[in-house]
């Protein structure tokens, strides 16, 4: 392959995307035909014009135009190439085409490109492409040609170097380097950062962001009363030390790696992975360095000298791909589908560059070839598992598994069986094939020597014993290496039936300059992990800090949390992104350090209120970060907050997933087998929502309504929507009604007067006193609801019986019902479900 990056004329100039900051027309910079990331599109009427003395930036201005309008036909994919012309790198674009060239550096007039994009009769892009260039875009291309047509490597593929921290005039504002990057950009435009949010807002913001839980009334009182200058920093430190921190951050990671409790297709049967989820929580709480965290997941089973239990549990990552047990599923097809799933997840999470399109064709916009896709898939070809599993017998275990006994009794029970099992695997080098055979539904893979070996029957008995043990002893799917990796071929057009393609061995995407397999050494997942966390990989550090930024500020610096490739969004603050990336790497991959830096910055601490002066240039706070963003809490936090406020929240960490209330019949469309939702009882009803059973084909409707993903694929940043179904859920779901009535009972005991009780309740949930108008509204609601329940005998008793929590017998049902309404109101407030 022709490596465009190695050969191209490289002059990385980290110019801030000044122009793109002002490309906010009505479509917010996304005018459809060239939707996404137009630089130089419609210019808002009051935006400052770009000075003609600033050179045009290829990466920030030209690349998006080419990428959105030209590269589909004049790019890396030979199948769609028009006029045999590539415009994605310098040599081709400037090549002599027989007396003329597409681009003549320094002279737009002699450039064929210029002639065609200005030709109204026969324009480029062609009419039938539905793409058009704006006059501003055309002029930018002209200027860029005149200035020498300098191509730069796509910013994300350049190894980040620590940029200089910019000087700022207002030296009093910055709390750390992050703020200087943000402020320097603001000062250029004479924009002030927003004032610091009040203490109470900061308390709620930091507590929800770091722990996913609300502050308790005691925490609120203590913090609001603490007027020492470092009170906030100490708050952040104490939050980072809570176990809730790891639980909350785990949700983010589990979204990325698409963790769930089921296989995700057809039967959608269970696959035990929760010990992996618990390992994630534990590792994040221990602040395991991110390189180690990565290596254990990708290659825990290969770690030297002997993988520990934790390493094996972590290797469950490789087993989180979707799987099917559907009768008639074709093994070769699902081998291809699993490859795609694994490559897509690895590249989405760690590289933030989608390569899945290269399954069928060379990437149209980035220099990723189809061969790259398959060499990447080959890294995962050694993973032993049944391609098409079965929901019965040994197959139901989704082999291979590791028992993770919870106590000595369990350990003692598994010991003899596991000993015999291991002995068999050691004594018979082909026993793994028998195991794979038994774990696969017909048509099955080959047996050693074509038939069941002599020891087969005895071995099968041990596997049956394992199957039996797995019913009572916790276990987790793990990665185990096949002695012989599966063959990976380049599939023409992704056609799994084509067996003529080149057989490939593992290699890093060619354009990224990583290692390749040699005759002496076939690269392993361990090599993949090493390269991923090496300084030669330009993407991983950026990908991680970029989405962390989005987590705490609302939008990542490069707005797509899983796409940094050329079709992604140019970063608003490229130097800040690089500075954070280098800081992350040089800190020893210290996640907590980066999070602490962001959360203790003044940028983070700004008020979230929208501002008149930003309404046109940055209405959604995605470009300047001159304020915070008010964000609806994630699904888990919405429910957990209600449980916490009621005092119902069970704070046990980890363990098998639980089954909180779910509407009847939600699993009715599942089959093979049909299933009843096994609603939990007692404390398991009140576990943090991250422990809710994740049924990929039917995620919990409460979670879905608040935008929790199905975990079928990588989610880098959740959407935040506001819908009527959400309102119905938090108004009427038994989880919320029960929390409200339990909270109501607690409230009724706090004081003698309604007003005092209300103040207490309000502070308890929202860490502040109600305003007079709020007090009046809620007391009126209380009074009216009393009368209504009084007038409808029996109604109060019904309401306060919602949920499993005991109903207090010493409180007047009508009183309790009326306060329940007040609690429901407070739990449904915009302020309650929003962190601002």
């Amino acid at each position, binding site marked *: 392959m022709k490596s465009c990056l190695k050969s191209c004329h490289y002059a990385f100039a980290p110019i801030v995307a000044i122009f793109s900051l002002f490309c906010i027309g*009505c479509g917010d910079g996304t005018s459809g*035909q060239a939707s996404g990331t137009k630089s130089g599109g419609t210019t808002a009427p009051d935006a400052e014009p770009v000075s003609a003395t600033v050179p045009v930036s290829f990466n920030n201005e030209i690349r998006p135009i080419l990428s959105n309008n030209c590269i589909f036909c004049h790019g890396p994919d030979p199948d769609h190439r028009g006029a045999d012309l590539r415009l994605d790198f310098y040599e081709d674009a400037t090549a002599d085409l027989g007396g003329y060239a597409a681009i003549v550096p320094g002279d737009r007039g002699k450039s064929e490109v210029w002639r065609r994009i200005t030709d109204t009769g026969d324009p480029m892009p062609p009419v039938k492409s539905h793409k058009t260039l704006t006059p501003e875009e055309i002029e930018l291309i002209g200027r860029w040609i005149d200035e020498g047509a300098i191509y730069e490597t796509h910013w994300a593929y350049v190894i980040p170097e620590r940029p200089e921290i910019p000087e700022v005039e207002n030296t009093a504002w910055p709390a750390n380097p992050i703020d200087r990057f943000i402020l320097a950009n603001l000062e250029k435009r004479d924009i002030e950062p927003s004032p610091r949010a009040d203490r109470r807002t900061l308390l709620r913001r930091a507590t929800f962001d770091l722990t996913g839980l609300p502050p308790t009334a005691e925490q609120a009182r203590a913090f609001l009363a603490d007027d020492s200058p470092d009170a906030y920093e100490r708050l952040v430190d104490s939050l980072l030390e809570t176990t809730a921190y790891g639980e909350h951050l785990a949700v983010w990671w589990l979204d990325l790696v698409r963790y769930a409790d089921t296989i995700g297709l057809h039967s959608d049967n269970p696959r035990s992975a929760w010990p992996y989820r618990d390992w994630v929580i534990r590792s994040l709480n221990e602040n395991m360095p991110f390189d180690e965290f990565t290596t254990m997941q990708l290659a825990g089973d290969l770690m030297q000298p002997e993988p520990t239990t934790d390493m094996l549990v972590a290797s469950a990552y490789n087993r989180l791909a979707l799987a099917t047990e559907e009768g008639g599923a074709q093994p070769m097809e699902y081998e291809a589908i699993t490859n795609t799933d694994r490559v897509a997840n690895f590249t989405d999470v760690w590289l933030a560059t989608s390569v899945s399109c290269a399954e069928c064709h060379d990437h149209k*916009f980035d220099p990723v070839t189809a061969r790259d896709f398959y060499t990447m898939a080959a890294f995962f070809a050694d993973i032993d598992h049944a391609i098409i599993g079965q929901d019965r017998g040994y197959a139901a275990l989704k082999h291979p598994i590791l028992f993770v006994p919870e106590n000595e009794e369990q350990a003692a029970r598994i010991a003899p069986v596991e000993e015999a099992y291991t002995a068999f695997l050691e004594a018979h080098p082909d026993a793994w094939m028998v195991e794979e055979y038994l774990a696969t539904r017909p048509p099955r893979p080959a047996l050693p020597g074509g038939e069941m070996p002599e020891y087969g029957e005895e071995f099968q008995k041990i596997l049956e014993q394992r199957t039996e043990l797995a019913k009572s002893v916790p276990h987790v799917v793990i990665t185990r290496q096949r002695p012989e990796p599966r063959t990976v071929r380049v599939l023409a057009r992704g056609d799994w*039936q084509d067996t003529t393609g080149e057989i490939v061995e593992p290699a890093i995407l060619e354009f990224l300059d990583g290692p390749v397999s040699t005759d002496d050494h076939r690269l392993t997942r361990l090599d993949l992990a090493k390269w991923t966390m090496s300084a030669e990989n330009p993407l991983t550090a950026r990908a991680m800090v970029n989405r962390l930024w989005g987590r705490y500020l609302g939008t990542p610096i490069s707005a797509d949390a899983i796409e940094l490739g050329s079709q992604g969004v140019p970063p608003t603050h490229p130097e800040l992104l690089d500075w954070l990336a280098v800081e992350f790497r040089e800190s020893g991959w210290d996640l907590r350090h980066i999070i602490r830096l962001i959360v203790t910055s003044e940028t983070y601490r700004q008020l979230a209120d929208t501002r008149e002066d930003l309404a046109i240039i940055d209405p959604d706070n995605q470009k300047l970060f001159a304020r915070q963003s008010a964000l609806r809490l994630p699904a888990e936090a919405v429910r957990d907050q209600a449980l916490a406020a009621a005092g119902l929240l069970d704070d046990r960490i980890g363990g098998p997933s639980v089954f909180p209330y779910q*509407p009847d019949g939600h699993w009715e469309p599942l089959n093979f087998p049909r299933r009843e939702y096994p609603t939990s009882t007692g404390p398991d009803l009140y576990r943090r929502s991250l422990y809710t059973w994740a049924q990929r*084909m039917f995620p919990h409707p409460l979670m879905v309504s608040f935008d929790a993903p199905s975990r079928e694929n990588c989610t880098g940043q959740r959407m935040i929507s506001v819908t009527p179904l959400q309102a119905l859920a938090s108004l009427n779901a038994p989880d919320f009604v029960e929390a409200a009535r339990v909270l109501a009972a607690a409230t009724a005991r706090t004081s003698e007067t309604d007003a005092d009780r209300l103040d207490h309740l309000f502070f308890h949930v929202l860490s502040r006193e109600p305003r007079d108008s709020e007090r009046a509204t809620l007391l*009126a*609601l209380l009074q009216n609801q009393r009368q209504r329940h009084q007038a409808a005998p029996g109604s109060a008793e019904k309401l306060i019986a919602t949920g499993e929590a005991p109903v207090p017998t010493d409180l007047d049902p009508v009183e309790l019902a009326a306060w329940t309404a007040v609690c429901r109101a407070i739990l449904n*407030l*915009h302020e309650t479900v929003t962190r601002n």
Partner: protein
Amino acid sequence: MHPQPRLEPVLLDRAQAERCLLSQTRRKFLTSAFGSLGSLALGTMAGSRLIAGTPKTHGGLPANFLTHAAKAKRVIHLCMAGGPSHLESFDYKPELERNHGKEMPGHLTAGQPLAQLQGHALKAFRPQTTFRKCGESGMEISDFFPHIQTLADDICVVRSMVTEQINHDPAHTYFNTGTIRPNHPSIGSWLLYGLGSMNENLPGFVVLTSEGGGQAQPISARQWSAGFLAGKYQGVKLNSIGDPVYYVGSPDGVSTPCQTELIEAINQLNQDHAKVVDDPDISDRIAQYELAFRMQMAVPELTDFSTEDPRVIAEYGCTPGDGTFASNCLMARRLAERGVRFIQLYHRGWDHHGQIKRGMGVASKLVDQATTALIRDLKRRGLLEDTLVIWGGEFGRTPMAQGTGRDHHIKGYSMFMCGGGVKSGHVHGATDEFGYNAIEDPVHVRNLHATMLHQLGIHHERLTFQHQGLDTKLTGVEPAKVIHQLLA
């Protein structure tokens, strides 16, 4: 005062309008429209439709995708889940009769994907029922469908459907989203995204399920997911047990006035809060609580069949609300009347690997009369002309026997459409004499998608959403085309 964005009405599609309103004028709604918001009785506030749930992550907007006048306003998809046999419904193949029990011609089957017949002998299997010529067109319809036979002059049968997925789960996903990659929007979500809802008091995309006639294949919520589009575009499953829509019922012991008062208080408090905090999402939330309340009122009205004429109910042949396909058909008409954009009924009963004769008999009895009643009912009420009804499965079944049944088949199968500007009394395409390959005018699923969008006034290449850097669309990356021969 900031300059208003320049809005060019001709070029401004719905989604752009939404975006503009959101980013530019949300705050004005807050200060003006809500300045006087006192009670739910205020009713629909201007623009509430445009305010519903906005994604916060970035994403492109489609170009002007409404390129022509729409023939249909809504779609009813009667999804015959499991894959009904085309060879026992709309595609009569006497050649199978003649070759019954004989090896299938190798040129048809060599190298072709198989599902459960992998590794088995491939022998032709005769039609398990009789066919008759129906209507003026004389199209052949099997005797499993005596009612649909009477619709021969109304429907447009496609005998040359082709899909790419040979197993149920991926084939449904492919039909609904145009790809088997997870997290892509389903048809109904694309329609809501592109066209919006016609009745905000009800979900704009409603799914119902029923079963009977064969093993009920699982149907994933993925089939009505909004994928990477905003949550408000997702389909809502209407349940026959419990709350018809999840959480739509007030808690036990809470009367409607109690609930009204509560929601009013919440909105009053949110409105007060908006005076203190400058957060445009507050207005969104107020609007959504209003809508939630109206949905709480509208759903019981929707599911109250007491106003239905008993003769109409008899025509469908159901006890309303009993969860059968027939009851769901009656509900589909009620949903259509109320402006629901995309109505999808799954009948899970067509996976006839064995005993196809018996299975077809049961499934067709559950579906035939009700389908016919629905189409006639829509026609009578003048709804059929702008409602596109689509009937069919995720694939067809093999001309080869699998014991006493047939396996999954993707190279040629049948569906039919009705209303919504498609031809009536028309047969499009054909399979070979064995019913194996679509050899005449094949209609790939993506072309059916393109055609359906066309009938709704949408240019299928322009209704796009930028996801991971790509302008993604229902019809996918391979070229798709509108099948004009299907259109009246």
